[in-house]
């Protein structure tokens, strides 16, 4: 064909005469070997590189996706905790309201002293007449004058103490009865166990 001819004839004049001559002399395989060897290394490197990059990318993307789920779950945990914190501080604020504190104080039998007495540290003088505080508690902390709907359902005094004690002591009481059933302990003081649960802070009993 005419095109084949063209291809064949064109390079011929471009090849220098010198080279044409050396081709006949030089060892062909050694040269092709020299050329081929580095080519293979490059090819392998490139392929390994590409595969490496691909695997790396895959790994990264797996990691990223995994972290996304972790972030997502941590975010929702954070939100839960923030809400818990808000709910607890709301409760704390309500419990520290003056209405609740005075109700608790009255429940503990505390009274407010209407005629205070001063002790002057510089002179040692007592100003005013020291008399025991009179317990006109009913009048002092008359409830209903400063209503607070936020306190609805919050127990006061003995009721609150009872409710608080119930929760931590329940398992202790259960253990006690179990122990009593399996090996009868002589007069196991259930009351003592109630007074000092194993994990509680040491504190005096106040009533």
């Amino acid at each position, binding site marked *: 064909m005419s095109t084949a001819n063209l291809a064949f004839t064109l390079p011929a004049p471009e090849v220098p005469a010198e080279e044409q001559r050396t081709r006949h002399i030089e060892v062909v395989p050694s040269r092709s070997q020299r050329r081929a060897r580095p080519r293979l290394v490059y090819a392998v490197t490139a392929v390994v590189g590409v595969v490496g990059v691909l695997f790396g990318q895959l790994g990264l993307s797996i990691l*990223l*996706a995994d*972290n*996304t*789920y972790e*972030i*997502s779950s941590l975010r929702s945990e954070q939100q839960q905790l923030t*809400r*818990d914190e*808000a*709910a607890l*501080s*709301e409760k704390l*604020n*309500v419990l*520290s*309201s*003056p*209405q609740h504190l*005075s109700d608790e104080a009255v429940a503990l039998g505390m009274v407010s002293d*209407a*005629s*205070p007495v*001063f002790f002057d540290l510089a002179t040692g003088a007592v*100003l*005013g*007449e020291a008399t025991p505080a009179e317990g006109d508690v009913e*009048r*002092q*902390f*008359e409830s209903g*004058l*400063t*209503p*607070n*709907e*936020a*306190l609805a359902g919050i127990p006061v005094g003995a009721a609150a103490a009872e409710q608080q004690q119930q929760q931590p002591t329940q398992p202790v009481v259960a253990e006690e009865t179990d122990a009593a059933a399996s090996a009868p302990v002589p007069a196991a003081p259930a009351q003592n166990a109630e007074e000092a649960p194993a994990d509680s802070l040491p504190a005096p009993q106040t009533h």
Partner: protein
Amino acid sequence: MPRAQRSLRARLALTLVVVLAVVTVFVVRLIDIQVVQAAALNEQSTSRRSVPVTTYAPRGEIIDSTGKVLADSTDRWDITASPRYALASTKHPVQESAEAIAAITGQDPAEIVAALQAKPDADHAYVSRSVSLDQLRRIKELDISWLYDEYRPSRNYPQGSVAGNLVGFIGTDGPQAGLELSENDCLASTNGVSTYERGADGVRLPGSTVTETQAQPGGTLQLTIDSDLQYFVQQAIGQQANALGAESATAVVMKASSGELLAVADYPSVDPNNVDGVDIRYLGSLAFSTPFEPGSTFKALTAATLLDKGVVSPTSKIVAPYELEVGDGTIKDSFVHGDLNLTLTGVLQNSSNTGIAQLAEYMPASQRYEYIERFGIGTRTEVGFNGESPSPLRPFEDWDSRTALNSTFGQGVVATSVQVASIYQTLANNGVRMPVTLVKGCQLPDGSWVDTPTGEGTRVVSEYAADTTVHMLESVVQDGFLAKSLTIDGYRVAAKSGTAEIAEGGVYTSDRVISIAGMAPAENPEYVVVVTLTKPDTIKTSAGAAPTFREIMSHVLTTYRVPPSTDPAELYPATW
């Protein structure tokens, strides 16, 4: 051959044309999608994957001077349901579920059933409003498929009616009263919107978060109010109001040196957690909003004015009759007596109307009018409380001779409790009136303070006039007819009583506003207390307010650790 060649060329040409045509169609479509419709399609695609989420920032807290919380933001949820699914559900029948929900929320199960049956075909109905986190979690544990929840940022007032009159409250349409309304610019938060793309399982696609607007929390509003004192004062006036059968009562505690309000109590007072608990009249603060004719407590102002102009001295002599004929009427004292030889001090001690009216004639009424204005009557205080009254002062041109005389003992002029406190603060602070302050400032989320008061006072009367008036008022406490119920062991107290008639339809009635205004310790006043009781039933004189004044003042002095007075008072002579 040429024939076959021609046919080949024709076929090639045809193929080429077809291929070109197809390519053209594709190119046109490509340009259409990639360029012409690109924006719209992109938007459509992101909106499928992305969801805009409202991010909430809390409304600012209102705290008292010690940092105790009076109002804070809290998380609440509305429980909603789809009646359509609920009524069809066999797994979670309505009646049974309603009972379970009601057990948690404390509602009536019938109420829930009724809410669901009201619109059986609807997809949205409120089952329970404003449930707490704890309740929400327990409701979610029920795992009822037709139940949903909507987040609703809400407001909580941990101290209830303590300072509820000042704090105000928030209704469904936003702030409704008090500081919640007037300081909304400080407290309000701005909700933000964040948009992110999500996968099929609803999890955020990595790196896709686009926050469009950041949520801005509100600032913290700090008041000058001490909530413990406020509680005590509210309790005290509440007890006395009930004991006397009074319609309402107010009390104000103010720091003499700064004009800061430590307590502004009203009885009845609204509990912002339960706004419907009181009559609509008591949703705000009477101490700011309701002017009354102050009566004799105003005599201290008249005395200070006369002393400032130098027209009288504490021992200026006057003969005070029971009745005094003036122009078109008569002025009477509150108790029947013969002619009394009183000094100015004695006039205050005996609260003689005829005495002060005669002494006031040493000075033109126009000048006294100016002093009344300078003491703050006729203008709103610097607080600018929501619904605050300026206590309108009739223009001087409209004053007749009767009003001019009546004003000397606090009739024919009006003042709010806070304004009366401000008058006594001026006297207590050596004649310098400090701006009345309720708000210490607004702390923005970045920590900076705004709206802090300027704290610059104005001189109303001379130091001599103010101090002498305070000294004269000590006579009221030590030797006056209320001495027994006003004196506090260990302290020198200066105070003035007031029993003012209430005018209705232009006629004075038998109803009274009884009040005591005073300060302690008198040698260097630190605190001002004003107590008023409106329309008492059993005791209609200031004797009804005196025990409460004493109770509050003793509490203030001990709470703020004011050292007892060391030197006894040397009083001016009251008679001659």
